[in-house]
């Protein structure tokens, strides 16, 4: 259970990283090489859902693990855990936020764009929280491959964020700034 819990945690984090990158790419309105825009949109969703499934496996298996000593309340209320309450609490915070994002994502047509987008902005908060939880709570921080994965993800996300904030982010930004193509 311990090993399974750790591996599912990594997979979940990696998938969330991919989902955030695809979300940003989707937002720019650009297709990616051979992938049309609607495929990116679908990939973004499906990878996010897959990541959430692995997140469920991660938490579920550690609930059953005797070493992690997770109590059911730790799954929803942060900072109560017995093992590293702060770092573990960050994991709980991330879980709660992800659930909010996924539920509002799936009910998008029901709740409207405004509410959906307001909650969806949380994703930019979720990622660093989840990464901090992995680094602070995990027992693999000392191993090189994990640090490498973490650093690569952080660099990719930082680059994507800078691109997101740059004035030429939108596919149509040239035309909209008055320069006709």
């Amino acid at each position, binding site marked *: 259970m311990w090993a399974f819990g750790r591996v599912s945690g990594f997979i979940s984090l990696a998938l969330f990283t991919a989902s955030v990158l695809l979300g940003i790419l*989707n*937002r720019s*309105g650009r*297709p990616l090489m051979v992938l*049309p*825009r*609607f495929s990116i*949109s*679908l990939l973004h969703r499906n990878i996010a859902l897959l990541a959430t499934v692995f997140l469920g496996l991660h938490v579920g298996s550690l609930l059953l693990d005797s070493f992690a000593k997770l109590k059911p309340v730790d799954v929803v209320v942060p900072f109560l855990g017995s093992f590293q309450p702060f770092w573990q609490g960050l994991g709980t915070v991330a879980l709660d936020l992800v659930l909010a994002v996924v539920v509002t994502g799936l009910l*998008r*047509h029901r709740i*409207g*764009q405004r509410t*959906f987008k307001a909650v969806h902005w949380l994703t930019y908060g979720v990622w660093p929280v989840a990464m901090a939880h992995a680094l602070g709570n995990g027992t693999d921080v000392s191993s090189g491959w994990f640090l490498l994965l973490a650093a690569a993800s952080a660099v990719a996300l930082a680059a994507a964020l800078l691109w997101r904030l740059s004035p030429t982010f939108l*596919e*149509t930004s040239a*035309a*909209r700034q008055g320069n*006709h*193509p």
Partner: protein
Amino acid sequence: MTAILHIDWTSCDGRGLCTELLPGVLDRDDWGYPVARGKSGRERTDIPLRDADREAAQEAVSLCPKLALSLQERMEPARESRKPGR
């Protein structure tokens, strides 16, 4: 019964997902916004669809990142009360 694809211009941000899913129905202008092919006036906002395009239109409605699209079933082609946004 005709299916009508309604574009809410106050929501649309010209992201072009719909123009990919309905290439035969929608063209894209320089700003990225969808333009109904061969249509003018109100029919650029409430676009009558051929039955063959209905499924793709449904997909576009659920994938539009701005929730700007909706499908309506109409006896007559379009309603009088709505004006085109642009």
